[in-house]
């Protein structure tokens, strides 16, 4: 059960009666929670480039967002500017918690489970986030980033800083499942709808053998295999 510290993520808490409507109106996926469910959504700029990837889940009256972005301060300012009198408040609780990734574990279940001080968030039956108070010691984390990368390549999982960045839109980095095709307007929606309807610029991730690496623009390089982004 390999475990890695996920220090790139920030943890945001959304409070107030308008919190769900607020997040839904600004991001690419439908923000609706099934029981213990997790919604991954994307905040885009007006050219549909990715500003932030946020994994959202409910904890009582709160919505918690595991947020991955290149500039968290700008992202928080962007969100605060959009509140406009709605009953929404945003707290950054990153410093109060550790967040780890658990991967390559056979029995990962989707959804959110709270166990004493730990909140476990299962993602697509592939990996888990574990959030626990930073006053507790960090648990058995590994620094073996290479193993994590190899696991990510074998499961074709795009990651921020590799496939995902502020230079690409969701259809250019394998995040199609985080774009809801039938929801109303959100920033970047017109561009994504045009790409989809004209089938232009759509991409998919592919694993290639490193023997072929010279012919491609590799986004994640492994020992024997790598991930590339290929136009469909």
């Amino acid at each position, binding site marked *: 059960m390999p475990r890695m510290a996920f220090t790139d993520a920030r943890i945001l*808490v959304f409070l107030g009666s308008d919190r769900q409507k607020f997040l839904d109106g*600004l991001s690419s996926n439908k923000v609706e929670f099934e029981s213990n469910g997790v919604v991954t959504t994307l905040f885009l700029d*007006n050219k549909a480039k990715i500003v932030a990837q946020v994994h959202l889940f409910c904890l009582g009256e709160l919505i918690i967002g595991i947020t991955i972005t290149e500039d968290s301060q700008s992202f928080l300012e962007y969100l605060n500017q959009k509140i*406009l*009198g709605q*009953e*929404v408040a945003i707290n950054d609780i990153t410093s*109060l918690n550790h967040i780890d990734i658990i991967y390559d574990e056979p029995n990962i279940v989707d959804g959110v489970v709270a166990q004493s001080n730990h909140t476990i968030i299962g993602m697509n039956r592939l990996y888990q986030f574990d959030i626990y108070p930073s*006053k507790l010691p960090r648990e058995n984390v590994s620094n073996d980033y290479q193993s994590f990368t190899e696991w990510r390549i074998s499961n074709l999982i795009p990651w921020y800083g590799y496939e995902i960045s502020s230079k690409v839109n969701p259809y250019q980095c394998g995040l199609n499942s985080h774009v809801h095709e039938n929801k109303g307007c959100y920033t970047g929606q017109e561009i994504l709808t045009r790409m989809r309807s004209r089938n232009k610029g759509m991409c998919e991730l592919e694993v290639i053998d490193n023997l072929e690496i010279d012919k491609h623009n590799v986004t994640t390089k492994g020992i024997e295999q790598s991930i590339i982004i290929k136009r469909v």
Partner: protein
Amino acid sequence: MDCGTCETAGPVIVQTPEVVNVELTITKNAESMLEQAFGDDKSMALLVGVLSGGCSGYMYDLQIVDDTDIDCQELSISGFRILVPNSSSHLLDGIEIDYEDRLMGGGFKINNPNAKSSCGCGESFA
């Protein structure tokens, strides 16, 4: 997980932007449409607000209301009561409310000097 609220749960404190005293204008076309909409009852008001969302990040919100619970500034322009929420006043100062009489894409339009860009349908701006 330490959510930071367990021991200190209190009312949600909403950040509000700086309130600006709004000045706005209404074109003749818009005035005549408002005359039709209001009729003789000038006690009603036109609420001109902004919501988050839409293709460009902000969306205009026009409503004819009796009154509202929203914290607003009230203007009187050409005999019409105009309400502008204080929370979106910084985005609406200097706007012109126009009406375009067209079969497709017609209706009330907002010309906003604060908007850097707007979406194709004109309902959303950044």
